[in-house]
């Protein structure tokens, strides 16, 4: 092995090792990488205020067979909504009724 070739190979090996060490220290990463920490370490903004909740403020799921009619007389599925409403022929869905293991 002549001297310049040997020098180049040693420099190359050294650079490779430094790169490998730097990569290990950086660790994990996002896309494609398996993470070593947990990526949900933030708090919400907060300021939740539930004043105004009470009777009449429905928040839970409806029972199966719940009437989809509107008390204010507005036509069901009116086109003013930003979303695409379910077909009027569809009945109101509810939670699963089957218990675990049955």
């Amino acid at each position, binding site marked *: 092995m002549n001297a310049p070739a040997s020098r180049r190979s040693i420099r190359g090996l050294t650079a490779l090792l430094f790169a490998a060490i730097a990569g290990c220290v950086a660790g994990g990463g996002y896309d494609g990488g398996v993470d070593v920490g947990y990526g949900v*370490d933030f708090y919400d903004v907060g300021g939740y205020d539930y004043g105004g909740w009470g009777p009449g403020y429905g928040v839970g799921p409806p029972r199966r067979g719940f009437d989809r009619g509107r008390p204010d007389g507005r036509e069901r599925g009116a086109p003013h909504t930003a979303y695409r409403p379910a077909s009027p022929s569809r009945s109101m869905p509810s939670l699963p009724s089957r218990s675990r293991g049955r």
Partner: protein
Amino acid sequence: MSSRYCGHDGFPTRASLGALWSLGVLWGIATMATAAAAATFVLPPLVQPASREHHEGKVIWADLVTPDVAGAKRFYGELLGWTFNDIHTGTSDYSVALLDGRPAGGLFQRAMRPGEQRQPAWLTFISVRDVAAAERHILAQGGKVLSPPRSYPDRGRQAVFADPQGAVFAVLQSSSGDPEDVLAAPGEWIWSSVITRDPDTDAAFYQNVFGYEVFEIPSTDGSTHVLLSTEDYARASLNALPGDGAKRHPHWLNFVRVNSAIDTAARVEALGGRVLVKPFRDRHGGLVAVVADPAGAPFGLLEWTDADSKEGAK
């Protein structure tokens, strides 16, 4: 010709070989340390044994981010009968909550920085088949990335986002499949609601991202309530913020099934939590309430009988 690396004969000197050996040792140590850290932070599979079920749009997991995991374990353990499996890493403390041996949620320790105006919260995870595709749709619909997609051994791939109105949620592509569609047992999560300023436009966002059927729910209080559904099951609701909504922050709120909202709310207070909304009768006939754990993370209580989800139940 000599150099710092080579002797007169052109071969490496003892010093240069020594330096290389040292670098090699460092590389080995770093590799082992990284491997060890990765190996210890393994979240359990969502479903055991793994299934082939996938229910896109279903809420399949919840993580609590709290400054006091030990306190949260005491509170939720005594309130709901949860037990816990701890997972420690060099930087993260995580505990998996179990109910009758089944994973019910996760508790993640994160210190609250002095002066931080933030609030511990339960983070809602929605099932997706492809996190990258979900991310594209969320961004296209005006959502934001809070934590980019990451993979966790056995758990799958997940990411955290905010909807256009600021409500935070996560998506999870479970590598073990999704939990089956069965009625939640008392002590398990049974329902989720997005409390938001504008349910109409928010419903369009979630519909375009997750493919929900959207049903408007009649209300007697004049506010807008809509229901999100897939596979003919109700998955979540969107509710207008009551009162002066402009001052309130949109968020997801998860509900635990309880046999008695009144008794459970009283127990919450006895364990150091707070009742934010006293139990009141909801549209399905049972009681609901909103409470907060001792660190301030809110969650709901929902009474639901086995008969409530059967056709024709009254």
